[in-house]
């Protein structure tokens, strides 16, 4: 089966310091990958590089077997920030943002936004501005905003960091739902409950190298 995303080598340096020096990696659809590693190990940088938000030396990069990783391929990858930024509009407006950017209009957009609102369980929040939301609610809205675009690959950066109680529980439930939907999910995190989700492939990032863990 053709991997969703693959590269032969990925290197990233900041000045003299080599942060990442990764060998071949394949991310397959229908699997969740978790990358653990200490602070500053490069987990976030790796996700940002794969999202196209940061430059790096990448050899043999292919998306669904195609080495021409252009705007179309980029649109099938969505990065969700550790502390998601919500635009100064309503929850529904935030979820609709990516659809508008892709030119999806009218009734279809409205229906997709409604579906994503139901999926993330944020129906009661739909008209609220972002400053009225808790951290957990923001994370769920950010996941819905990504989900509505039906990406092939989700890059989730510490989705449960700084969350506790109900917010963390609900976010983990959404991550688990994603992992069951046949898409690729790459998560940088330390949350034991996410690491122990069924079918997760675990990697550890240390000294710039990515090592698979049993």
């Amino acid at each position, binding site marked *: 089966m053709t991997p969703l995303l693959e590269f032969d080598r990925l290197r990233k340096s900041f000045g003299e310091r080599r942060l990442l020096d990764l060998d071949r990696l394949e991310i397959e659809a229908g699997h969740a990958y978790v990358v653990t590693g200490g602070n500053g190990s490069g987990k976030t940088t790796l996700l940002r590089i794969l999202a196209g938000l940061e430059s790096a030396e990448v050899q043999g990069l292919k998306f669904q077997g195609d080495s021409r990783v252009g705007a179309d391929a980029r649109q099938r990858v969505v990065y969700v920030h550790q502390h*998601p930024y919500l635009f100064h509009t309503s929850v529904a407006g935030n979820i609709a943002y990516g659809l508008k950017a892709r030119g999806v209009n009218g009734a279809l957009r409205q229906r997709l936004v409604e579906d994503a609102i139901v999926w993330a369980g944020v129906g009661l929040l739909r008209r609220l501005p972002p400053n009225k939301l808790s951290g957990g609610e923001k994370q769920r809205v950010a996941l819905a905003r990504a989900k509505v675009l039906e990406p092939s690959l989700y890059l989730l950066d510490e989705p449960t960091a700084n969350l506790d109680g109900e917010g963390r529980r609900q976010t983990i439930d959404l991550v688990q739902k994603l992992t069951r939907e046949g898409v690729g999910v790459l998560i940088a995190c330390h949350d034991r409950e996410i690491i122990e989700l069924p079918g997760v492939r675990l990697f550890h990032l240390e000294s710039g190298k990515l090592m698979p863990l049993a």
Partner: protein
Amino acid sequence: MSLLDATREAFRLLFAGDPELWGIIFLSLRVSVFGLLLALLPGVVAGYLLAMWRFPGRRALVVTVQSLLAFPTVVVGLVLYMLLSRQGPFGFLGLLFTQQAMILGQAILTFPILAAYTLAAVQGADARAHETAVSLGAGPLRAALTTLNETRFAVLAGVINGFGRAISEVGCALMIGGNIAGFTRNITTAIALETSKGEFAQGIALGVVLVVLALGVNVAMAILQGEGGMK
């Protein structure tokens, strides 16, 4: 006429709807608003690009824009006068001593304010705003408009401040407008002229309008800053 009498006469002129006085006020507003509108797009675009783009010479451009904030209006007037006068390179346009020349002058004066406020707004914005827009599939234009929308209160503060500078400046309007009654005489040039003639009533009336406008601009800024702070 005593100062008290002049003040009484000033308010009488204002409230009686003196056509000459109100003509000057509307001309001022028109010239300042058009000047601001002319500078709006280039100013905001320049500020945004200076904030977002890294290129050789960027630092020098930023310093230049910031220096232009304090550029004497009379010097802008002098340069424009030389460019637009009959002997100047643009003399053939016949713009000197016209409202169009005043609008151009006020656009030049407001441009650095709009650029500097936008630059500061976008530089001070949360970097995740632009990044989130891009990662959700926004192209450069949509991502730029989103970032500007997220910083709209700070950008609008620049617009208000730009209007404040345009409506209250005297040097440039006097030099390139020529203070022609009914044609290029605005609030500030009229105050200067009337005062020099010892006709305080109209000067005071126009001064009151200018102060009210300046206060209005500051109140609008304070409200915007409050709104922005609440987000």
